[in-house]
């Protein structure tokens, strides 16, 4: 082989001629095929636009977003901001977005906790605990989410009594098939004192934490961080409220006729949707957590024990920080899944963005406009979430030498 190599070099003609024709030039071919792709795409877009225009014209419709300022005429069962039938279509979409955000944020928070718990349980040496976690994961993962939402909705509604026989907790929280009705805090003008106190407490504890860490690095003395900062954070706004003369009043719900008046309500649709989303997503997160923890080599645990760290500290200071690097990337996509899956709310009538969009589309007939708004909102949300998680991920990354 080696002997022949120089021969080859001399015998073979110059490469440009070897290709023969320009058709075989990879660069040219690349450009050509891209031009074809772009041309096809432009043609496709032109066709779609032309067809859409023709169709719209046939229907005596025009494209435009001014319908957003028209009165909607319908009500929504639950809204975080004021909404009534005389609010606009645009407002309806905004209410829908806020409801989606509410479900997504609470869902992500709760599912993370549940997922971690189940994931750790699955690795437990306790037979009952680990079997329970396995059972949970295998059942929940293999049933469609939509079906689970329906099941939870039925399970949430069925056992709950009507509003007149509502479960009464201390005359302030009522649980019935109208939802969970709770007292609603109303803050007076001087609440700012309490907020100021809270901010001061947060800054103070942050400073203390830095100081404590420095102390530990210098002297090796560990100072209690949570034991000190938690009471400060909790107590300071309360003291602030007391100083301001309790500007806080509670709007208690009261049974009036058919329903409760006052207070704030978590509707059963929200509860069912949240339960289903949290329980479903937690099964996937638990698997991520498990594989993350398993990915941390056992030597790390042994080394930590050898250094005299107890079990809790080993988990918290050695295993989890390393496991997180493995856990976070798939976690991000689970969070995105949960947010996207919250659109299944349409099936049980929780007015999320998808539901509001569908209703607005139906009452206004502006399919293209409404669905493009939904598309943009969901895409932006996904993009922002993944950017945020990427940033978090890069912060947690192993700093390698």
């Amino acid at each position, binding site marked *: 082989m080696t002997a022949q190599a120089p021969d080859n070099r001399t015998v073979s003609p110059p490469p440009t001629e070897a290709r023969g024709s320009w058709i075989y030039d990879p660069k040219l071919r690349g450009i050509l095929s891209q031009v074809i792709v772009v041309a096809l795409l432009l043609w496709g877009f032109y066709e779609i636009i032309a*067809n859409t225009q023709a169709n719209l014209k046939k229907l005596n419709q025009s494209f435009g977003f001014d319908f957003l300022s028209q009165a909607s005429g319908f009500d929504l069962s639950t809204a975080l901001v004021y909404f009534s039938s005389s609010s606009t279509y645009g407002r309806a979409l905004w209410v829908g977005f806020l409801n989606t955000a509410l479900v997504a944020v609470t869902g992500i928070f709760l599912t993370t906790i549940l997922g971690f718990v189940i994931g750790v349980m699955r690795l437990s040496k306790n037979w009952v605990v680990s079997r*329970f976690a396995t059972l949970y994961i295998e059942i929940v993962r293999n049933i469609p989410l939509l079906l689970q939402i329906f099941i939870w909705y039925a399970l949430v509604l069925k056992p709950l009594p009507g509003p007149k026989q509502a479960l009464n907790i201390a005359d302030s929280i009522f649980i019935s098939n109208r939802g969970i009705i709770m007292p609603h805090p109303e803050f007076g003008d001087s609440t700012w004192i309490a907020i100021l106190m809270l901010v001061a407490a947060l800054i103070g504890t942050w400073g203390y934490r830095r100081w404590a860490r420095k102390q530990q690095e210098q002297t090796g003395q560990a100072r209690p961080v949570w034991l000190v900062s938690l009471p400060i954070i909790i107590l300071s706004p309360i003291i602030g409220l007391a100083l301001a003369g309790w500007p806080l009043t509670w709007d208690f719900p009261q049974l009036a006729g058919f329903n409760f008046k006052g207070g704030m309500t978590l509707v059963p649709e929200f509860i069912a949707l949240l339960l289903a989303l949290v329980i479903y997503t937690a099964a996937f997160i638990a698997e991520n957590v498990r594989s993350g923890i398993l990915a941390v080599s056992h030597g790390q645990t042994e080394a930590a024990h050898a250094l005299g760290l107890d079990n809790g500290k080993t988990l918290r200071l050695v295993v989890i920080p390393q496991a997180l690097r493995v856990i976070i990337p798939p976690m991000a996509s689970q969070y995105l899944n949960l947010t996207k899956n919250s659109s299944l709310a349409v099936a049980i009538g929780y007015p999320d963005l998808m539901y509001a969009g*569908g209703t607005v589309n139906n009452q206004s007939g502006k399919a293209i406009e409404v669905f493009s708004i939904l598309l943009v909102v969901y895409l932006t949300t996904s993009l922002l979430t993944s950017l945020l998680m990427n940033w978090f991920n890069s912060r947690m990354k192993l700093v390698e030498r």
Partner: protein
Amino acid sequence: MTAYVRTEDAPRLPAPANIVGWRAAIRERLFPTPLSGLASIIIGALLLWVIWTIVDWALLRAVFVAPDRTLCNVEGAGACWPVIQDKALQWVYGFYPIDQRWRVNLVYLMGAVSLAGLLIPRIPFKGWNALFFFVVYPIATFFLLLGGVFGLPYVETSQWGGLLVTLVLAVTAIVTSVPLGILLALGRRSEMPIVSLLSTIFIEVVRGVPLVLVLFMAANMFPLFMPPGVNPDKLLKAVVGMSLFASAYMAETIRGGLQAIPKGQYEASRALGLPYWKMMGLIVMPQALKIVIPGIVNNFIGLFKDTSLVTVVGIFDLLGIVQSGFNDAKWASAQTGNTGYFALAMIYWVFCFGMSRYSMYIERKLNTGHKR
């Protein structure tokens, strides 16, 4: 040798009672520490309570034989199983004409046999079988189910329903998403900037929106984009929506496999003078696909579960047909819905759990080559 050194082994004593036997096992596994013991008791009690509730409802208080709803419609009755018996055929065939149901059976049978041939490693002729399953079978199914040729009466898709629609959706999406996913994954990693940009945009847009939105848009907007008068079938729109959605996810899974192939493989095949498609088809793809088979099967499981979402756009898949049955005046009772959902959950679970077990099995089987 001194006298005080023993020359023979001391007689063996039995191990202490607390480290062998069932008591020790229980202690070791259930009550190693007080906290763990408490967890065992609480979770064990919870588990027993759940199991008891289900058994009580599904067996003890259940109604097994009844001509209509009257027996199920009493206070305290459990599951109403006769509903399932009455509706079972509708769940499997939808509204498919009764005298034509042999066509559905034939499709089920062909699918089952061919799939078994593909999935069981010992059966030979994998290549032919794959050709049959991925090319011949879908075409045959199309003509067999729809009819209108070879003297078969035409059965429009609005008469399909239940498991048939679920399987048609799932299988079509599975069969189309793999090749589309491969193309998209190659496109995204392509050196041609425009192709790579377009593939990336497509993948990210589709992955960024919920499937329900994709289905809604396919159902509502697709016809607006078509030339006036052209209107695709409702089921077809859903199938196209699902396939596009699935291919974007598939593309990302396959891209993961492509990235795991060492650069040397690409360089070596280039050095051998292989052109792009030969390099991909003969060297890179076989290795990449082998790595991502578990991921692909996981995608299939997700896809199968996601077919239930077409219910929301008014297609009677398995979930849709079960729900529509709740409204039947003959069977409407407080327990009809629960019984339907329970049975449905079991059906879906069997399918998905089966797939996931198979995925684990194949993962173990394929993993051998990579262990060093």
